[in-house]
Every structure is written in structure tokens, then in C-alpha cells.
């Protein structure tokens, strides 16, 4: 599972990295080519209403979407690791406060809050700001799951043994807990990236994305706005969906594979 997932993501990354060598990315701008062309040898993915070549759009857009996901995932995860470890290991009042906040915030529909934020700063949204907006909510799940993992691990006898071996809290966290949590953290990170991409695509599909960058979500937004579906321009929406699906399934497979590594109980059953 892990290998299949990594292959899929690698494929997507290579597509974005090597694409510019073969295809002129200027054709991702409006009015670059003839509009409304079906897929053909000249335009393998077709062109849209505004005359953008969709192959070029994908080559520019896929890395942009991945970048939003990675940036937001990294920020969210870093916060999650910090808060999760603090909460789980320290316990007491700090834990109660962090856990209470996270559990409360989780019941708030994240995307809807993002809509509210994004619509206020709509004009200024760029790819990086988009990532920051999404990151503002991407830390909650990691905090929650890492906390509960740390909580169970903290009770393990080897942590007590480490205390008796004279290790201090910092050493116990980094030398005893962290290595064992690595697969969990990797799976968590993958999930955070996945969530970030999901949210950014969702916001973009509502028109709340970077207006001048052809991310995957914005491409879908334009396709919806200009009724590509009813007009039979299937390539306009099907192609970004294909890439989004590829990214999501790839990330999910990686996360599931890592989970299996971390959790031998699941491993037996599969």
C-alpha cells in the first residue's frame, strides 16, 4: 500500500517538475491559444473558454496545489506536534486547556470558517496566503491524535525505566517517545497535507482562491462558473478531477501504509 501511494505521488511530482521542460507554461495564461478545443495532439488536455491550454494549466497548477498542501500541512503539523506533545506529556491543567480547545474547535465546520476568513481578505489571496489560511485550522487534528498517542505511550513501562535511568523530560520525549512515534507522525503529516489540499480545493471551488493562479481548485471553479459540464466540455473539469483524485488516493494510501507500520494489530488483519 505504502509503495503504491508513494508511486502515485511521485508520478504527480514528476509531472509538475518535468512538465515545463516539454511544454511552454506561458500557454497556461488566458488568451494564449484558441479557446474551447477538444483534446487533440496539439492540445492533449484541450483548452478552456479563455484560451488556456489545459496541459500547461495542469503543469503549473498541480505543483501550486501541492505547495499549498505541503506548506499548510507543515505549519499545521509543527503546531500539532508542539501542542500534542505538550498536552499529552505534561498533562494537568495545560492538557485540559489544550484538549478542551481542540475538541471544541473541531465541532466547528472548518471550511465554513475558512470561507468567512477568505471572503474578507479575498482580494489579497495568493498561493502562500491561501496556505496560511488553511494552516490556521490544520493543526487541530494532528494535536488531537498526537496527544492521545503520547498519552498512551507516556504510561508505558519503558518511559518509567527511562526516568529511573536518569533521563529528564526533554530526553524522554526526544529519545524514547519520538522515535516510536515516527510512523504515526508521518501518517499524521500525510493526513494533514491531505486535509489542507482538500480544504484549499474546496475554497477555490467556491471562488475563494488565488484569482490569478491556475490551481486545480480554481480550474474547477472556472469550469463550474462557465457551465463546462452542460456545454459538453468534459475535459475542462475531468482532468483537474483526475489529478486531484490521484493526489488524494496517493496520500491516503501512504497514510494507511504508515498506519499499518505503526499499528501491528491492523497489520495482521489485512
Amino acid at each position, binding site marked *: 500500500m505504502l509503495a503504491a501511494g508513494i508511486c502515485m505521488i511521485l508520478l504527480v511530482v514528476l509531472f509538475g517538475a518535468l512538465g515545463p521542460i516539454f511544454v511552454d507554461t506561458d500557454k497556461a495564461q488566458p488568451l494564449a491559444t484558441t479557446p474551447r478545443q477538444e483534446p487533440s495532439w496539439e492540445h492533449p488536455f484541450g483548452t478552456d473558454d479563455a484560451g488556456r491550454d489545459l496541459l500547461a494549466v495542469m503543469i503549473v497548477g498541480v505543483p501550486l496545489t501541492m505547495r499549498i498542501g505541503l506548506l499548510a500541512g507543515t505549519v499545521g503539523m509543527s503546531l500539532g506536534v508542539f501542542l500534542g506533545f505538550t498536552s499529552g506529556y505534561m498533562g494537568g491543567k495545560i492538557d485540559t486547556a489544550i484538549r478542551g480547545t481542540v475538541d471544541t474547535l473541531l*465541532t466547528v465546520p472548518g*471550511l465554513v470558517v475558512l470561507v468567512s476568513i477568505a471572503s474578507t481578505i479575498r482580494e489579497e489571496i495568493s498561493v502562500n496566503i491561501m496556505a496560511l489560511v488553511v494552516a490556521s485550522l490544520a493543526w487541530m487534528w494532528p494535536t488531537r491524535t498526537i496527544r492521545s498517542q503520547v498519552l498512551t505511550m507516556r504510561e508505558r513501562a519503558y518511559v518509567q525505566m527511562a526516568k529511573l535511568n536518569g533521563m529528564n523530560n526533554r530526553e524522554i520525549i526526544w529519545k524514547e517517545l519520538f522515535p516510536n512515534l515516527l510512523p504515526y507522525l508521518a501518517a499524521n503529516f500525510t493526513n494533514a497535507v491531505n486535509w489542507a489540499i482538500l480544504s484549499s480545493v*474546496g475554497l477555490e471551488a467556491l471562488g475563494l482562491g488565488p484569482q490569478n493562479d491556475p490551481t486545480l481548485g480554481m480550474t474547477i471553479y472556472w469550469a*463550474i462558473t462557465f457551465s463546462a*459540464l452542460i456545454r459538453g466540455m468534459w475535459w475542462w473539469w475531468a482532468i483537474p478531477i483526475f489529478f486531484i483524485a490521484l493526489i488524494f488516493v496517493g496520500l491516503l494510501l501512504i497514510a494507511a501504509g504508515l498506519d499499518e507500520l505503526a499499528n501491528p*494489530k491492523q497489520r495482521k488483519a489485512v
Partner: protein
Amino acid sequence: MSWNYTVKRVALFLIVVWAAASVNFFVPRLGTGRDPIREKLGQLAASGGLRQDGIEAMVKAYQVKFGLDKPLYVQYLNFLGDTFTLDLGYSLANYPARVGQMIGNAIPWTIGLMLVSVLIGFALGTLMGALSAWPSAPRFVRNMAVPLMTLSAIPPYLLGLIVLYILGLKLELFPLSGGYSPGRLAIASVDFYLDVLHHSVLPALAIVMQQVGFWALGMRGMMVTTSGEDYITLAEANGLRNRTIFFRFGLRNAMLPQLTALGLSLANVVAGQVIVEVIFAYPGIGTVLFQAIQASDYTVINGVVLILIMSIGLVTMLMDFFYPLLDPRISHTRQN
């Protein structure tokens, strides 16, 4: 259920609503000046998104309402008061339509679609996930884990585009958009309800497909753990029928964490649903939100956000209250 717990839980709900309302109040006032309404209206008028005749009337209405000459805290208190009485003000783009009215018209559509599709998705997904981890289930069921996982990974609105294309456009089995056929009178008749049902199949299908995958995946993990429990072994040793063990011992127990997850993920479910409505031009709250975003209609956007947060908060609270009925080990009262 103890009083103490009830009071605490209701208080938490009110805090969430209060926090959401406060964010709604302060965020628009951060960047802009002291008169956000006039400023927003100015922007709208400049881009031609507003009917001219409404502007002055609306500005006046808002000034009276918020007392913009009054200090900020008075404005804030007024705003909170309005929020808790569900008075959400006027739509900027469709004055004199009231936000509450617009949302009120849309909400039955959303709730209907959502309730049905989430329930079907949850039930089907839970069952399939449980079967896929049950050692004595047929082989083909156990092999379904991978396709289910793929489905769960794709957001419902993207699935929506695909089913819309295949079942709506190509096969012409279902209408492409809307909640009912244009021109049909929205009166309570069998014909009308059938029409509504017909229109809701595709958006519901899109949500159900993704939901099935999501719940199946979670349930599979829970079922793997549950099927190793001692009480499953003893039930088998006691010669209970396989079906009884599966439903009353396996599924019943493995489902409990799923229900907690349902409460927690409801927020995400709703968000995904909002975009599905846009794709299908379904007359629900998502479409209202989408149109408001396109028209920069901030009062409507904020109203929708607030209503969504409130209703999800309400549902999670109710679920917390009902959970002890399902799991006798959890109790909100002290054991004596």
C-alpha cells in the same frame, strides 16, 4: 443525566456560538474603518453589484440598527443580542431581503438532502466496513476495502461532477440541476415530492458514495480490533449464530467509536455538502453561500457561517446527550 453535566454542556454550546458571533463581528472591523457597512456598500456600488435605490435606505437601516455613532461595545452588545435572537440583518445584494429569511427558505432543502444522504452513507458504510473486516464474510466483501478507500479519498463534489456527467448528461436518467422542475408549483402534492426526490438523487448519490467510503474505512479498523475481543470468542464458543455474533456483538460494539466520530466529522461533512449543492444548483444553503460569495454579500456569508456553526454545535450537543443510551459504560451521572 445529571443537571451539572447538562448545564456545562449547554454552556459550552453557548460559548461556541458566542465565539463564532464575535469573530463575525470583529473580523470585518479589523482592516476597515469604523463604518464597515457603508464601506462594503461603497465597494459593491462601485462594482455595480447593488441596486442603487437600496443603498441609502439600507445605510439608514443599519445606522439605526447598529447605532454606528455609538461606542464599539454598544454595537457589539447589540450585535450579540441580534445573533441570539437569530436576527441576521439584511442582505446587501438583495435588499430588502432579510438574511434570516433567505437562510430559512434554503435550510429545509439542505437538511433534507443532508440527513438522508449522511444517514444512508453512514449505515451502508458502517455495514460494509464491518463486513470487510469480518473473518467469515464472503471473500468479495473482504476485498472491497480498496475500492471503498479510493471513494473515501475523493471529495463528494468531485464525485458529483462525475455522476452528473454520466447519469445526468449522458444517460439522461436524472435532472441536471435544481431542487425541483422549473415552472412546477411548489405545493404539497405527491407529484411535487416525487419531483423533488428525482432531483435529489444525484446530489445524494455523490455524498453517499464518499460517505460510504469514509465510514467503511473507519469501521474496518474498529472491527478488526473488536473481532479479537474475548466476548466475541466466548459468543462463538457458546454456539451463537454467526449473524447474531456479527450484529449484536461485533457491529454493535465497533460502532460506538464511529458514532463519536460522526459527531466530530459532521462539521466536515457539512462543508463538503455545501459545494455539492453548488455543483447541482440545489436550492440549499450552500448555493445561497456561493451566490453570496460571488456577490460579495457579507451579511449573507456571515449569516450562513453562523447558522452552520450553530446547527452543528446543536447536533453535537444532542449527540453527547444521547450517547450514554447507546453505551451503558458512559454515564453522565455519578455511580453510587
